[in-house]
């Protein structure tokens, strides 16, 4: 009897402790979960719902009706298709965002890698360099947008002056005001601002490569170039991929910098800028929500691909 009660009560007590612990954990997590539900969960669900309605931003301007997928694609009575999926401005915004993201992320990676390798070399002054590259990162995005807007200013901007002396610009023109160069002018701002961030991430990766591997390569007579391609690059790949994905996610969501510099100009309109214009300025909450949701889905697809292909670990 005594033995059997012992063996029965011991698991029960352990289960009791486990339950108490689990309940405590629940209470500890509750505030975070409530806040996240309030700022992320509920607004997202509401965005999904609104994207199937014709809701206006200002609820006084009329009732909301459920219109199915009409925000996305809608065949009018005269047989013409309307809606987000056939809106040329949306596709311009998508294309701009893709061009902006791909080019700026590639340039940032190359430049960041160069910065990181210079800082990682055993040369005097690298501490100064590491500190200096934090400056663009520390400057608020809006401030850096204004700083560059000033340098790009049509007549008084220093970059416009350089453009004129190189014969690339005519008087009163700037790389920002010319429609065919505006997006690339913004890429230059983004590269300047975020290459340092890239450099910091890659520097951490570089410092993780043991020095004796280079010594061994040196002994074997491998040239510096060969060491870079056979040793540095393969060992850096994990850090490189993580940094690449993070920057791409950021670039796909970009809003602040192009908006501050060019507002709603179509040649530099990104997906997020297009969404805000519809949500807030046009006051079409329903249609704008459809745009937001599509952006959300694009980002999520990208994230899922990233999590599965990089096998991000959680525990």
């Amino acid at each position, binding site marked *: 009897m005594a033995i059997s009660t012992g063996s029965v009560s011991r698991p029960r007590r352990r289960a009791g402790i486990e339950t108490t612990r689990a309940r405590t954990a629940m209470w500890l997590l509750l505030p975070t979960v409530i806040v996240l539900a309030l*700022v992320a969960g509920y607004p997202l669900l509401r965005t999904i719902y609104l994207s199937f309605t014709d809701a206006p931003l200002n609820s006084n301007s009329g009732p909301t009706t459920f219109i199915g997928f009409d925000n996305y694609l809608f065949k009018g009575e005269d047989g013409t298709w309307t809606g987000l999926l056939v809106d040329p401005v949306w596709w311009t915004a998508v294309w701009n965002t893709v061009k902006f993201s791909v080019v700026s992320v590639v340039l940032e990676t190359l430049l960041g890698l160069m910065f990181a390798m210079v800082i990682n070399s055993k040369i005097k002054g690298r501490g100064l360099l590491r500190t200096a590259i934090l400056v663009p990162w*520390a400057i*608020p995005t809006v401030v850096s947008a204004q700083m560059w807007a000033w340098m790009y200013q049509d007549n008084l901007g220093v970059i416009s002056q350089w453009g004129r002396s190189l014969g690339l610009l005519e008087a009163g023109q700037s790389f920002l005001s010319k429609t065919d160069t505006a997006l690339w002018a913004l890429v230059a701002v983004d590269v300047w601002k975020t290459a340092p961030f890239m450099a910091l991430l890659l520097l951490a990766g570089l410092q993780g490569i043991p020095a004796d591997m280079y010594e061994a390569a040196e002994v074997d007579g491998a040239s510096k170039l060969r060491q870079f391609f056979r040793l540095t690059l393969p060992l850096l790949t994990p850090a490189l991929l993580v940094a690449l994905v993070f920057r791409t996610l950021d670039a796909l969501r970009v809003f602040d910098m192009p908006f501050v510099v060019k507002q709603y100009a179509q040649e530099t309109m990104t997906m997020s800028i297009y969404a805000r214009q519809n949500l807030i300025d046009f006051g079409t909450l329903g249609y704008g929500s459809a745009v937001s949701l599509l952006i959300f889905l694009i980002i999520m697809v990208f994230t899922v691909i990233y999590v599965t292909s990089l096998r991000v670990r959680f525990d």
Partner: protein
Amino acid sequence: MAVSTVPVSTVPKRRSSALQTLGLGLFWVLIVVILLYVLFPFYWAIKTSLTSSADLPQTALSFFPPKPTLENYVTVFTTPSFLYSLRNSLVVAVGTVLISLVLASLSSYALGKFRFRGKTALMYIILGVSVFPQIAVLGGMYTTIQTLNLYNKPGGLVLSYMIFTLPFTVWVLTSFVREIPTELEEAALVDGATPLQTLFKVLLPVMMPALATTGLLAFINAWNEYLFALTYTSDDAARTVPVAIASFGGGSQHESPFALIMAASVVVTIPLIILVLVFQRNIVSGLTAGAVKG
């Protein structure tokens, strides 16, 4: 024979040392070029901010301010709406940091030291929120903020900023808590401490470095945020520094008072740069932790 071998063997050596010097020289040129590239825009902003608005059209392209003046800084600091925006930004950023640190301390203790069902799912959700595009919740949150009567109030911005500060803070703190030896917590529990006592009296002192790093990054993110601040505020009561700077001068681009904008830009950037330089080691480790862990 002997005579001819001497030059043969010394020439490559001399060439290699010359090459080395050349390489080192090029390297230094590279460093200077990088420094110029990275610092020039900020230098240009400072230079412009020291030029009087009246002189700007004539001297905009000179590399040094011909007649340095602080008049733009005087104007900036006597513009009430700019001072309000500084106050609002400070309130919002500090509020965001405090609330996200308290919430994240509680939940990182649970996620780092407790075993319960659904933990992995919760971690996935938190990671998912951290990559949420802000634009996806902009419209939905607009109604939440109006319902809670937080439109055009610093509280509304603090609440909305939780979407990007909280997941990051929870992630980094959780990975930190996980590394704290379990003996520390068990000793406290054996002594009869409640979980909250254990957290605040035993774990938090150990967590200080991680709290400082994540708090600093949350502060910088909240200080710099633009999209929510632009959408959920309408006047001096809650407008933050980025909104004030982006709309400085208002009107068309040609009439924008750039000397003033640059002065305001320098004013809001200097504290950040000092903060970043003082805490640069924490920031670098925090950024890499955040990126590698999720």
